[in-house]
């Protein structure tokens, strides 16, 4: 089933066009990887999906992005509601400089998702459990989140993102700042999360894309060159450029 449907998306930074005519369908409850060399626009596309590009003054987005058949670029779309449904995990772990508990409970608090302290405790616990962090931190929930290791911080950010039970989770190179062990943990986690969430991950590592994703899109110079099932892209790509990139001839 199609969760997100992008139609002819163009993105401009001022006068410079960063994305050209991107049309891409994203399957529900699957992991879609976006790959491509640096500066190819894959992160820009990802940020279109929860309208994070709004933050950048000079950035303008054209075209349609339908999530559950609703165009999020429409004026009637409320960004706050949208971002409640579409969580995001960033490249560099960015926990709030507050306690672990406050980090995870922030989303549910501002969206009024818990009626009592008990409910909130439950949300925090399940979120941390889903992020495979609970066992490591259950005794120090009230210590600062910035005191964790890099991998733990990133899992805390994932816990924070899933605390509001989003339908989609966007991940922008979530492992690029982590060591191989932490990376493996996150990848395992992604596999688990896809049961309940649709996941779109931007990655530089083709091995990672191959390991975690079911679908892959290849971006180059602001254009979506090819997309399809991961198997097909990696084993039998249609396009020469994809072939060259996959085999490490450029990028």
């Amino acid at each position, binding site marked *: 089933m199609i969760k997100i449907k992008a139609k002819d998306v163009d993105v401009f930074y001022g006068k410079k066009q960063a994305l050209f005519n991107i049309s891409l369908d994203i399957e529900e409850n699957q992991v879609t990887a976006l790959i491509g060399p640096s500066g190819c626009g894959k992160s820009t596309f990802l940020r279109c999906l929860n309208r994070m590009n709004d933050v950048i003054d000079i950035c303008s987005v054209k075209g349609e992005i339908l999530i559950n058949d609703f165009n999020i670029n429409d004026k009637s779309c409320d960004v706050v509601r949208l971002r409640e449904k579409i*969580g995001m995990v960033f490249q560099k772990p960015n926990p*709030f400089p507050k306690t672990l508990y406050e980090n995870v409970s922030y989303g549910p608090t*501002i969206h009024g998702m818990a009626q009592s302290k008990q409910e909130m405790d439950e949300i925090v616990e399940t979120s941390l459990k889903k992020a495979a962090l609970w066992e490591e931190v259950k005794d120090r929930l009230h210590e600062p989140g910035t005191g964790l290791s890099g991998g733990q911080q990133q899992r805390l950010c994932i816990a924070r993102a899933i605390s509001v039970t989003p339908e989609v989770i966007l991940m922008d190179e979530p492992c690029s700042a982590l060591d191989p062990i932490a990376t493996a943990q996150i990848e395992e986690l992604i596999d688990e999360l896809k049961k309940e969430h649709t996941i779109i991950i931007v990655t530089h590592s083709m091995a990672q894309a191959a390991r975690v994703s079911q679908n892959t899109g290849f971006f180059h110079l602001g254009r979506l060159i090819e997309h399809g099932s991961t198997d097909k892209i990696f084993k039998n790509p249609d396009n020469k450029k994809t072939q060259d990139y996959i085999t490490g001839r450029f990028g």
Partner: protein
Amino acid sequence: MNKNKEQLLNKRYKAEQRFRLYGLSAIFMALLFLTIFIFKIFSTGYSAFQKTWLIVPVTFDAELMMLDQNPSKEDLQDADYYDIALKSMADLDPNANEDQENELKRMVSYFFEKEIKNELLNDPNLIGKTKEVYLTASDDLDQVFKGNYPRDLPEDQRRVSDYQLKIFDQLVANGKVESKFNISFFTNADSREAELAGIASSFMGSIFSILVCLMIAFPVAVLAAIYLEEFAPKNRFTDFIEVNINNLAAVPSIVFGLLGLGVLLAIFHLPRSTPLVGGITLSLMTLPTIIIAARASLKAVPPSIREAALAMGASRMQTTMHHTVPLSMPGTLSGTIIGLAQALGETAPLILIGMVAFVNTIPGSPMDPAASLPVQIYIWAESAERGFVEKVSACIMVLLGFLIIMNLFAQIIRHKFEKKWS
């Protein structure tokens, strides 16, 4: 080739050594100036914290005070103390003629009558008895006792006569002159008499001005900074505002004084010489300083924190109020304190709005006329009496102490509450 290289390397090391030397000597010079400055102020000013007292036997003669038998409290209040005060001074030299009696009277402050009165009010049983009372020495004798007075000048160039010196030396020899901690320097308002002048009025004036300044400048500046940094679109207009805030910070303070004079006093008719007007004028000056500090510390909050909050579905307002502003507060606060410290030391604008007036009452609210510490320094430095020289330095010491405490406070806030980014 190799030799050339070695020469070049040596040259580079030498250049580095020279540069270190320049740096060290610059620091040495700065420290030297600072030391000389502080030494000069302390060596002139420390004696102002001591006050000289003459111990004079006073006979509380009921007849001279026009008191009946068993006087009530009110009677004691209304009694005439001038005659016994005069008599006790004159009694210091039984052979004094009328002129000399007058000179004897001028050896103590004009306040001596009141000091004698207080003595009796404290202990009404003294009527008819004689008691040694501490009387404030005149400012010139105070300076003589502290060794700051040129006794070897010809008599006609001195304010202290040979006769007064003779009596004073006798008193010193008999142990009837004492130096004690000068409490009145902190509790008295300004006075034309150096021995009675204190900083209470200007100190309170400064505190009230700073409070008014803080209450106006802080909220306005913080709101302006938050709007400009977090909400305002980046366009020509906001650029224009930004440039002008920086310009405002560079405007000479006397211009703000003129503004206060022309607008607050002339148009709004606020009470002249008051900390209220002073505080408002100073807040205009402090405003750009706080805005700049607040914007800098807002800018220092990593964008990743804002993105994290926004991506969680926080509105812009929530992102700002829950995350950015609390994280920027330490920087904003220490900038505010530094801005206030600047305002505390400001003299020129306060002179223009009339806080330079002679005020001999201690202000109870920002609406009462008052001086301020730097203006007090200016007023005293202008006075001719020798007794004010040490007072100027002492007042500078108090002001410097105040400033150092504020800056220390700013440092502590910055270090203690600063968040470390992962």
